[in-house]
C-alpha cells in the first residue's frame, strides 16, 4: 500500500479498525482449526513451486543500485540487475559474461572494450545499450546525486575530477558508447582487476528512460525504483515490496539467459533479529538465513550439521587506533596491544564461526597474494615493549576506551579483548558503545581512542583493503599518515606487471603491520543456515549470489 495523502491513509485506518474486532473471532476459530491439523511447512510448499525463501537481515534502504551501500540491498539488487560482468557460479575471482558477451583490453590494462550482447533486455522490453551504461555511470558520478559509492568509479579516467566538480563535461570522462553494442572504457591507470570491480553494483546500469520519467538523473527521491515502477535487466523482476515484511521477485521473461534461470521466485524477508530469523528457519519458514548468532554455532554444528554453512568471506575485523592521541602515538604501545591479543582463543571461544585469526590485513584466498604471517601472539615481547614505552606492567597507562557500535557480538569481542589486555598487560581499558550513525561520526572525526571496525572487500583484489589507509582516504579514520606507504600504493596502482604490483602491495602491507595504525583481529566467514534442498548455492568469497544458477529441489 502506498498512498499519497493523509486522507486516504486515515480511511485505511478506519477500515482496518472495524475489521480488527471481527478478526478476534476469526482468530479464535483458526486457533482450533490450526491446532487440530498438521500444517504443511512453508518451505515445502515453496520448494514445490520453485520459490526460494531467504532471510535478508534488514529492510533495504532503497533498491536503486546507485544509492545503496549495504549487504541486504546487494542481495536483492543482484537478482534484479546485471552489470557488464556477472557472477561466476562458484568463484568470485572469475569474470562471467553478463551484459557484455566479450571484452578485450590493451596491453597495459588501461583501455577496455566491451561487446554487449544483442539480446540483453530491460524488463520493459527495451534493449540494454552501451548508451545506457554511459548514462548510468554519469548518474552515479554526478555530484548532485550524492552517491556514496561513486568513488568506486574513480578507476575510470577523469571520473574523480568529474565527481569532484573540477570538470563538468562528462564526455571527458573515460567512457564512450562506440555504438549501441560497444562500450569503451579508458582507465586512470593499469587495472587488470577491473573486471572484478565491474561486478559491484555501483557499476550496474539503470534504464535512462525510466529514470528520466520518474524524477530525473540526479533526484534522490526519484520514484523509478519503487515496486510499481522498477525496471531492471537481471534474471528476476520486482513483483512485491511490502515494507518490513517481504520483497518478492519473480523470474523475468525478458532476461537474455532466462532459459537458465531455475527458480520461479525469490522472497526476501527483512528479519533483523537474529533469533527471530533462526526460529523462522527452524519452524520451516525460510530456506536460508542471513546469519547465525555466534553462541549457537556449536549447537547447530551438533544438531543441524547438514544445514549449517560456514563459507569464507573476504573481510577483516580490526581495531582502529587513533594515533593522534597519547599514548597511541607511540608505535611500541600499538605493537604491545597487538601482540597481547590471543586471536586463536578469540575465534575458537568467542566468535566460534570458523573465522581465521588475522595474521595480516589482506585475507587469504586472493590470486597470487599469500596472506601475511606478520601478526603474532607474543606476551613476552608485548610486555617488554610496553615497559619500554614507559608503562611497565601497565602502570601509569591512562584510561582508554574501545569504541564499538551497539551490537551484542561486538560487545562480546570487545569484552574478551578488554580482559586479555587486563590480564596480559595490566592495562584497564573501557568499552564505549554508540549508535551506528554517531559511531561513524566519532570515527571520522577521530573522536575515539580505539574503535572496532570491519572492512568487506568491494572487489576481489588486495587493493580494496590497502588503499583505505593512504593519507587523506576518507576511510582511513586513524590519523595515521605515512608518505612511504602512500608512495608504495601509488606505485602499485601504476605498476606495469602483475608480479611487480603484488610485490609493492606486499611491501605496503608489511609497512602497515609494522606501524600498526590498526590491529587486525580476524578474517570473516559467512555463517548461515541453509535448507539442503537449495542447490547451486556455492561458497563465494564476496557472497555475491548468481541466482540464475540456484535451484531448489522439491524432494
Amino acid at each position, binding site marked *: 500500500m502506498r498512498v499519497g495523502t493523509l486522507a486516504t*491513509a486515515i480511511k485505511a*485506518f478506519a477500515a482496518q*479498525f472495524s475489521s480488527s474486532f471481527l478478526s478476534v473471532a476469526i482468530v479464535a476459530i*483458526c486457533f482450533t482449526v490450526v491446532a487440530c491439523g*498438521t500444517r504443511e511447512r512453508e518451505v515445502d510448499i515453496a520448494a514445490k513451486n520453485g520459490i526460494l525463501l531467504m532471510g535478508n537481515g534488514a529492510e533495504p534502504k532503497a533498491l536503486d543500485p546507485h544509492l545503496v551501500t549495504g549487504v541486504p540491498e546487494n542481495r536483492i539488487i543482484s537478482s534484479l540487475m546485471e552489470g557488464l560482468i556477472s557472477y561466476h557460479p562458484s568463484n568470485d575471482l572469475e569474470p562471467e559474461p553478463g551484459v557484455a558477451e566479450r571484452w578485450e583490453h590493451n596491453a597495459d590494462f588501461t583501455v577496455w572494450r566491451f561487446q554487449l550482447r544483442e539480446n540483453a533486455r530491460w524488463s520493459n522490453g527495451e534493449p540494454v545499450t552501451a548508451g545506457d551504461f554511459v548514462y548510468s555511470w554519469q548518474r552515479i558520478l554526478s555530484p548532485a546525486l550524492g552517491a556514496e559509492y561513486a568513488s568506486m568509479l574513480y578507476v575510470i579516467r577523469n571520473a574523480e575530477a568529474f565527481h569532484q566538480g573540477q570538470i563538468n563535461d562528462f564526455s571527458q570522462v573515460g567512457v564512450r558508447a562506440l555504438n549501441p553494442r560497444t562500450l569503451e572504457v579508458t582507465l586512470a591507470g593499469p587495472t587488470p582487476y577491473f573486471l572484478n570491480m565491474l561486478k559491484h553494483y555501483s557499476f550496474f546500469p539503470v534504464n535512462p528512460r525510466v529514470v528520466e520519467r520518474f524524477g530525473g538523473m540526479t533526484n534522490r527521491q526519484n520514484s523509478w525504483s519503487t515496486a510499481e515502477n522498477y525496471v531492471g535487466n537481471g534474471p528476476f523482476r520486482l513483483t512485491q515490496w511490502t515494507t*518490513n515484511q517481504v520483497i518478492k521477485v519473480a523470474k523475468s521473461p525478458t532476461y537474455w539467459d532466462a532459459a537458465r534461470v531455475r527458480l520461479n521466485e525469490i522472497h526476501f524477508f527483512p528479519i533483523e533479529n537474529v533469533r527471530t530469523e533462526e*526460529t523462522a528457519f527452524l519452524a520451516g519458514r525460510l530456506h536460508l538465513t542471513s546469519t547465525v548468532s555466534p553462541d549457537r554455532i556449536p549447537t547447530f554444528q551438533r544438531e543441524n550439521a547438514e544445514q549449517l554453512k560456514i563459507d569464507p568471506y573476504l573481510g577483516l575485523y580490526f581495531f582502529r587506533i587513533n594515533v593522534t592521541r597519547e599514548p597511541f602515538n607511540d608505535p611500541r604501545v600499538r605493537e604491545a596491544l597487538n601482540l597481547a591479543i590471543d586471536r586463536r582463543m578469540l575465534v575458537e571461544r568467542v566468535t566460534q564461526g570458523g573465522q581465521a585469526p588475522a595474521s595480516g590485513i589482506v585475507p587469504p584466498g586472493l590470486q597470487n597474494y599469500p596472506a601475511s604471517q606478520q601478526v603474532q601472539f607474543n606476551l613476552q615481547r608485548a610486555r617488554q615493549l610496553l615497559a619500554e614505552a614507559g608503562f611497565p606492567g601497565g602502570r601509569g597507562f591512562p584510561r582508554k576506551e574501545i569504541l564499538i557500535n551497539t551490537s551484542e557480538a561486538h560487545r562480546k569481542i570487545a569484552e574478551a579483548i578488554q580482559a586479555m589486555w587486563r590480564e596480559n598487560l595490566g592495562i584497564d581499558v573501557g568499552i564505549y558503545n554508540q549508535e551506528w550513525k*554517531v559511531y*561513524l561520526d566519532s570515527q571520522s572525526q577521530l573522536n575515539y581512542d580505539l574503535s572496532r571496525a570491519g572492512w568487506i572487500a568491494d572487489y576481489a583484489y588486495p587493493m580494496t583493503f590497502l588503499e583505505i589507509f593512504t593519507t587523506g582516504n576518507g576511510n582511513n579514520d586513524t590519523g595515521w599518515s605515512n608518505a612511504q606507504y602512500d608512495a608504495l600504493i601509488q606505485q602499485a596502482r601504476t605498476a606495469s606487471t602483475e608480479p611487480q604490483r603484488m610485490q609493492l602491495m606486499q611491501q605496503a602491507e608489511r609497512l602497515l603491520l609494522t606501524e600498526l595504525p590498526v590491529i587486525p583481529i580476524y578474517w570473516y566467514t559467512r555463517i548461515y543456515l541453509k535448507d539442503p534442498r537449495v542447490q547451486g548455492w556455492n561458497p563465494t568469497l564476496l557472497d555475491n549470489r548468481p541466482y540464475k544458477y540456484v535451484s531448489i529441489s522439491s524432494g
Partner: protein
Amino acid sequence: MAKFIALRFLQGLLVLLAIYAITFFLVAATPGSPFSSERAIPPHILAQIEAFYGYDKPVLERFWTSLTNTLSGEFGPSAVYANRSVTDIIAESFPVSLKLGSISLLAALLIGIPTGIVAAVRRNTWLDYVPMSVSMAGICLPTFVMGPLLALVFGLILRLLPVSGWYGPEYIILPAATLSLYYAAYFARLTRGGMLEMLNQDFVRTARAKGVPEWTIVWKHCLKGGLIPAITFLGPALAGIISGSFVVETIFQIPGLGQWFVKAALNRDDFLILGLTVLFAALIVVMNLLADIAHVALNPRLKYE
C-alpha cells in the same frame, strides 16, 4: 459538552505545536546526521545531499518550511529510505499496529477485568492473591522474554502457531498474547482498585445491611463505577501499544509502527522522527479526550470542567 470538546481540541493543537517545536530543535541539536555513512562521503558531495533535503538552510528557516509543510499535511521524505515519504511509512504500518493493538487490548480486558473484580470482592484471600499473581506475570517479565518463550513453546516445540510474519489471522495470536499478558496486569490492578473503592462506599454498607446479595451489589451497583479507572486507561494504553510495541514487532517480524519509532531515532531520520512524534502526540491528545468523555459518561457526578 461541545464547548468542552472545542476547548480541549484547541489546547490539543497547542500541545502539538509545542511538541513539534521541541522535537525539531532537539533533533537539530543532536550529533550525527541521517547522511553519515560507512563509506566516507567527500565534503562537497555531502553538501549536495544536504542541500537536496534542505539542510543547507539556517535552522530557523528549516523549522518554518518544515512546519508549514506539516500543516499542509506533507511530512516530507524519509532522509534514509530513498523514495519513501513519511506519510507512506506511517500509512503502511499504522493499520498493522492498530489491529494488533486493539486485539491485544481486547484480550487484556477479557483477562484483566474479571481477575480484578474477583480479586476485589474476595480481597486478601487466595482468590485475590492467586489471580493477581498470575496476571502480574506479564509485567514482571520483559516482553522480550515472554515473546521468544511463547514462540519457542507454541511455534517450535508444539508447532501449533507460526512464529513470525504478518499474513493470516493465526499470525496475530502469539504477538497479541505477548502484548495482552503485559496489559492484562494493569487492567486487573486498576479494576481491583476501582472496585475496592466502590465496595467501600456507604451505600454498599447500607445495601449489605439490608441483606442485598453480595453479587447483586457487585454487578448492579459497583461495576459501572469500579470500571472507570480501567476504561480511563484504555486510551493511553492504545496510544502506548500502537507506538510502543517495538519489541513484539521485532520478535515476531511484524511490519508495524513501533519499530519505526526506534529505527527513526537510531537512523537520525529527521523527518520521520518529526512525523512520528506528531502522530504519537495527536494519538495521546485524542485518546485523553476520549478517556475524559468516557469518564464523565460513566460517572454522572462529574461534570465537564
